[in-house]
């Protein structure tokens, strides 16, 4: 029931979107996880349910019996596993199977949607009739056969997660705990969370496409609690990708563990910065959260076709200095936000949102692309078969600029560097956005002087873009497992950025005079 409620609250948060790290970091408890036996076949719909071309065609025909500009069947089978280590033992596992088909009819800007978890012909036909009720025209000709599209190669795996047993995963969790405890005597508790998932989708569209995609995902998180002189501090780190078991090399794991320990121990020294407006340096990597909130959401075309985004009338205008280029790209191999095809069956690719300072393109789904008279950008995504798709980000980043990190730090007289984050949010209409800085540094007279922690930063999207005065040449994508929430739907995303200087932002802080 708790889940229902949260989904609902998501609906009400229209016009606002949030980006978060895993929910358990906010104390909610971890969901899902494990594996062995019962290997899922490559195409469970054909193998398990006899959903062949003829069945899909029959359901599509019912779905479009009252008319349609577009329609699709989104079959999904997702198997997820998780493990949890606390107090030295791996004593909790979870697993989940989500299986169903979502049926959608689109007429102009109108959408009819239904889904069923019972993949029998009578249930699918009933769902098709429910979804088609939004339409009141005459039937369109549905394809008799669907044309299979080539499978993508962005995240092919040699060993699917269904073939990786707990006996292989358990030592990884133990290793993380052992290494974390060994790194500092002050470390009191270590918790380790593992998750993996195999998701398979099959999308059949009214224009006759048949797309299949196998989407693996994994994430490893370590949470560290340290005690010193009666004071307690908690920190964490995680890594995530569309990868397989072999990806977890000792070096990769140790880098993550060291990050978590360093982020925890530095908090014993860290202060709150003074409050107010100041220059803010965003460190490379996770600071891509700025792009996600300050511009990415505002560029999703559903907000723009409705005129509700602050960017609605700004295409072709100068929004930033000429050295600022911002891209959303799903075609980056193995990234958490990567996709071969979007959830409407369109090839996912690369969309340049800001090119050399000029606002270039929104992120489109089919509905908005049609309204703007453009081709789709492959940005239609959905959380699962339970939801209709909408424009979403994938991997959002800024390209390299002409400056260096050293030049940027030297240029700041009094400001801060932001390094790690827990979450962000944006208000689409006003353009106000925020992100929460977990760790960072104070900069005084061009030098790093003290660690800081726990401050929220707030700004206005278009104003912040204008205030990006320096961009370094050290762009990288963050390795953390980000999840983006919009209108009640969560999807995995990636983000990245080089070191940049924003000349003025509002920093939450203490010591207000």
């Amino acid at each position, binding site marked *: *029931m708790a889940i*229902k409620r949260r989904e*609902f609250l998501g609906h*009400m948060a*229209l*016009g606002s979107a*949030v980006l978060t790290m895993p929910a358990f970091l*906010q*104390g909610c408890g971890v969901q*899902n996880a*494990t594996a*062995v*036996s019962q290997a899922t076949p490559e195409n469970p719909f054909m193998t398990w349910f006899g959903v062949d071309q003829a069945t899909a065609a029959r359901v599509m025909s019912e779905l479009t019996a009252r008319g349609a500009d577009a329609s699709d069947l989104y079959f999904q089978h997702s198997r997820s596993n998780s493990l949890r280590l606390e107090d030295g*033992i791996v*004593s*909790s*596992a*979870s*697993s989940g*199977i989500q*299986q169903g088909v979502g049926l959608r009819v689109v007429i102009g800007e*109108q*959408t*009819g949607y*239904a889904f*069923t*978890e019972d993949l029998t012909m009578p249930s699918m036909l009933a769902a098709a009739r429910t*979804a088609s*009720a939004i339409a009141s025209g005459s039937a369109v000709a549905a394809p008799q056969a669907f044309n299979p599209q080539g499978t993508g190669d962005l995240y092919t795996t040699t060993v699917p997660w269904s073939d990786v*047993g707990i*006996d292989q995963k358990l030592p990884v969790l133990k290793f993380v705990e052992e290494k974390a405890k060994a790194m500092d005597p002050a470390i009191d*508790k270590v918790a380790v969370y593992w998750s993996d998932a195999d998701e398979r989708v099959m999308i059949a569209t009214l224009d006759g496409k048949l797309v299949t995609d196998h989407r693996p995902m994994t994430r490893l998180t370590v*949470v560290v*609690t340290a005690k010193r002189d009666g004071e*307690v*501090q*908690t920190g964490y780190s995680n890594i995530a990708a569309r990868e397989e078991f072999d990806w977890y090399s000792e070096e990769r794991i140790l880098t993550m563990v060291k990050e978590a320990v360093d982020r925890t121990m530095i908090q014993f020294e860290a202060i709150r910065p003074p*409050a*107010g407006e100041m220059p803010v340096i965003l460190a490379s990597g996770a600071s891509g959260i700025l792009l996600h909130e300050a511009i990415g959401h505002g560029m999703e075309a559903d907000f723009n076709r*409705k*005129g*509700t985004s*602050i960017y*609605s009338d700004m295409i072709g205008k100068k929004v930033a200095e000429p050295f600022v280029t911002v891209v959303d790209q799903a075609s980056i191999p193995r990234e958490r936000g990567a996709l071969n095809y979007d959830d409407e069956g369109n090839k996912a690719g690369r969309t340049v949102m800001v090119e050399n300072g000029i606002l270039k393109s929104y992120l489109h789904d089919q509905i908005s692309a049609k309204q703007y008279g453009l081709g789709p950008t492959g940005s239609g995504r959905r959380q699962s078969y339970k939801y209709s798709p909408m424009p979403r980000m994938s991997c959002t980043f800024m390209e390299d600029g002409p400056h260096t990190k050293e030049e940027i730090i030297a240029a700041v007289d009094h400001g801060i560097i932001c390094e790690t984050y827990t*979450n*962000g949010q944006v208000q*689409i*209409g*006003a353009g*106000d956005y*925020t992100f*929460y800085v977990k760790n960072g540094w104070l900069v005084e007279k061009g030098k790093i002087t003290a660690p800081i*922690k*726990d401050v*929220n930063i*707030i700004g206005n999207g278009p104003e912040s873009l204008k205030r990006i005065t320096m961009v370094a040449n050290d762009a990288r994508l963050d390795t953390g497992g980000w999840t983006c929430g919009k209108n009640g739907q969560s999807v995995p995303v990636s983000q990245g950025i080089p070191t940049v200087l924003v000349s003025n932002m509002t*920093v*939450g802080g*203490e010591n*207000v005079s």
Partner: protein
Amino acid sequence: MSADLQNRAAQAVEMAKAAGADDAWATASQGRDVEFEFRDGSLEKVKDTTSRSLDIQIYADDRYSNHQTTDLSPDRLEGFIAEAVAITRALEPDEHRQLTPAELFSGRPTDDLDLVDSAVADISRDQRLAWCESLDRVATDHERVISATAGVYDGTLNSASASSNGFVGSHAQTYCWYGSNITLRDEGEKRASGGWYAGGQHVDALPAPSDVARIGLDRALARLGSEKGPTVKTAMLVDAQAAGSLIGRLLRPATARSVQQGQSFWTDLVGTRAFSEKLTIVDDPLIPRGFGSRHFDSEGISARYLPIVENGVVRNLYVDTYYGRKAGMKPTTGSASNRVIGLGDHTLAALLKEVGNGVYVTSWLGGNADSTTGDFSLGLRGHMIENGKIGRPVGEMNVTGNLKDLFSQLELVGNDVHPYSQTLSPSLVFGGVDFSGA
């Protein structure tokens, strides 16, 4: 419906036992959800769905795991559960992992919580459309409106649980919500937006759609011309709706799990005066038509009235059976029901007058808190309070501090509860708070 689900849960427990589990707990759920979204004069989206799932927790050889599936075909379900038992056996033993002791099932209340309105299942398409049109009309009549989206969401949720040590119980509730989000043309490229929703289990208890839309429009209008607020230390008046989410942040680490894991500023606070004496919080699962009302929690523990904070003194934490056992704490419940904040006697107008000058918070934007230390920093939108009255709209501001300190600085409590929430809070006034802005 309930008997079917109850059978399904009992069968799953049997399957788990047959597959070698020592104990098992299963919950079968089914729900119907309907969504209508209506934008700028026409229907934009209709979603009508029926969903189902089975959750099962397995206990075997002092080991534990939990699993969920939406694939309920009998042969595959049996395989899924057998695999779940195998997964459990591959874990490490943990003596604290045990099924909820049966004595915690006893004394289950039988109060009529009035959570089901049979009229919800009969809401017609025409009715939903009429509500949408009524919501839409209020918003689109205003000259500054760029876009307004009205929504109607209704449905029914049923679930039933069974365990190998004799638990049997079911829960049913209906819901119906409607409201709208409105975007207005502001200065330059800026849009002012706001919205409001009302909801409940019972259709006839809802305010008229036009009244709901009017509140949404007023909230959007109030944002017009919003500017960045000042950097200042002053009083903070948090409106009843925003106060609920602040209370949520305060209570998040008030659990045995957080305390046992060393991640809670509530550690060692039970029995001490940790907060202002103006603060009283009770977890009350038995409020008729309450959004969090129930007869038992997710572990089967019978519902009871649970004081969390009384006049600033911490009385209880949220304690589930597992972390309770680990931490040596008696279980209360691991999950919140209705969180009821003790009322003061001030109306909102009286609170504004008492404050005189300060910041009135109407919504939060992002931000977070560290559960271990209580340090927080939140983005906000609202108004300046000038001479006891609501003044100019402000945004692009943060409030920063420590949650434990903040709730020690709680100075006044209103009597104006926000009703559409599981957290029933009035407006709250805090003294000497750090704001950052221009």
